């Protein structure tokens, strides 16, 4: 019997059919403990992106219940979705930084939207930028940074509000192996500080080296769930 109190994310028999009739997820169930590091792997069209959208409450499941921190997601009112999202930091493959703002401003945006006072924001932003090792690039614009540095800025932005969950969608997709590995090390560091980290990836080398829990998806179904797994194709 599971003790639900220790799970930060629970997917209970989740199905999602889009309006065009596409079945993206079909009866997916899994749970993630608070402070866990989990890889979600699978080929294109396996349902990984749908899973992220469901977690961010951008879409609703057709069937099943999603619980975050023990609370049923479907009970969250529309006006409370922003508050809900503040507990989930997100990092994307394409970084999604604002080109017209420097590193500091890009990270500070996450603090501005929740109305953090300036003095506190300055402190928090400087601290998280230092953590990702970009203190010297504070005033640089994204175009002046390498891919790895841009992903670090995106990571800093995702972490500055101290979310309980960090969701990384193909965070190493646009990076060379060296930068990819340094990002994974950073994510591991963040995880060790207590943040639950979920990484959706295609990068088998990274998955194999990290030896963390791996959830494999295929055709909208969960095909494998290994507590210390690798990126094995036979999983799906």
């Amino acid at each position: 019997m599971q003790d639900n109190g220790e799970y930060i994310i629970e997917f209970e028999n989740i199905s999602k059919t889009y309006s065009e009739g596409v079945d993206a997820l079909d009866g997916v169930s899994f749970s993630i403990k608070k402070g866990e590091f989990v890889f979600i792997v699978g080929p294109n069209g396996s349902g990984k992106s749908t899973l992220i959208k469901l977690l961010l409450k951008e879409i609703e499941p057709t069937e099943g219940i999603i619980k975050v921190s023990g609370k049923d997601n479907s009970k969250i009112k529309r006006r409370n979705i922003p508050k809900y999202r503040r507990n989930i930091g997100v990092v994307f493959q394409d970084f999604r930084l604002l080109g017209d703002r420097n590193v500091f401003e890009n990270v500070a945006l996450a603090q501005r939207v929740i109305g953090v006072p300036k003095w506190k924001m300055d402190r928090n932003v400087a601290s998280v930028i230092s953590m990702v090792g970009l203190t010297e690039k504070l005033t640089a614009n994204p175009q002046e940074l390498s891919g790895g540095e841009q992903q670090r800025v995106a990571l800093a932005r995702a972490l500055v509000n101290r979310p309980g969950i960090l969701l990384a969608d193909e965070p190493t997709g646009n990076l060379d192996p060296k930068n990819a590995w340094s990002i994974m090390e950073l994510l591991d560091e963040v995880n060790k500080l207590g943040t639950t980290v979920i990484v959706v990836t295609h990068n088998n080398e990274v998955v194999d080296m990290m030896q963390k829990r791996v959830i494999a998806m295929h055709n909208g179904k969960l095909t494998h769930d290994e507590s210390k797994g690798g990126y094995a194709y036979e999983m799906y």
Partner: protein
Amino acid sequence: MRCINVLLYGLKQGMKNIRQNGLFTLASIGTISACLFLFGIFYFIVCNFQYMVKNAETSVGVTVFFDEGISEDTIEEIGNSIRSREEVLDIKFVSADEAWEKFKKDVFADSENELSETFGSDNPLRDSASYEVHLNDVSKQSGLIKYIKKLDGVREVKGSAETARGLGNINRLVGYVSAAIIIILLAVAVFLINTTVSMGIAVRREEIGIMKLVGAADSFIRLPFIIEGVVIGLVGAAIPLVILYFMYSGIISFIADKFSVLSDILVFLDISDVFAVLVPVSIAVGVGIGFLGSVWTMRKHLRV
């Protein structure tokens, strides 16, 4: 403190939107300005017309002439009967001498001496003693005339309601035409604000997406666009007000010069009276259009 920070951020971003969409912003401001400028012009016309009509109405009266050789008692009786009517504002007896003096002054002001030589002390209007009756509601004039005509000793009753009625009709016509034009212009203004804000949303779509992901509240995302709309409306209202302010005195003196013959009728409102209404109304309309235009656009394009 938090609200002030959010407001300042919204203001900064709103101004940024305005700069980024310079051309559409100018078009929106131009349309609102044109709309409120016309509104101002029509308001000038309508309120001055109303003012003139009101003036005319109070000066418009009924003149009651008596039969020849009528006794003073009968004149008094007629006066009492008229005074008892509720639509009567005031009644004044004008003796034949007073009528002659007034006529001389009004018509022969420049040649009064010649007139004295011709008529001497004779009064050609000796049978023109009358009552001047003013009404509190000019529309009841015809009813009163009918009543007075039936009174014994009354020879003739002259009303002059046509002037006031004519002015009133023109006033109404101007009002309808201006209302129609203003409604069309307002619709154009809302459409242009819609386009401007849509452009702003398109330009900032990526930023909006990121803000949503990091947990920005709907109000935080919408605030810059609302500020953009309101600023457009405010500037759009201020421009015509300034122009109209400087135009008003010029127009009045121009009309007064050109139509000096009608100086009795052409009585204009003071600029402060006109602007006491025009300023708040124009600002409310401008800001209202800006606000509603941006809210409407966001409902359509910005599901946050």
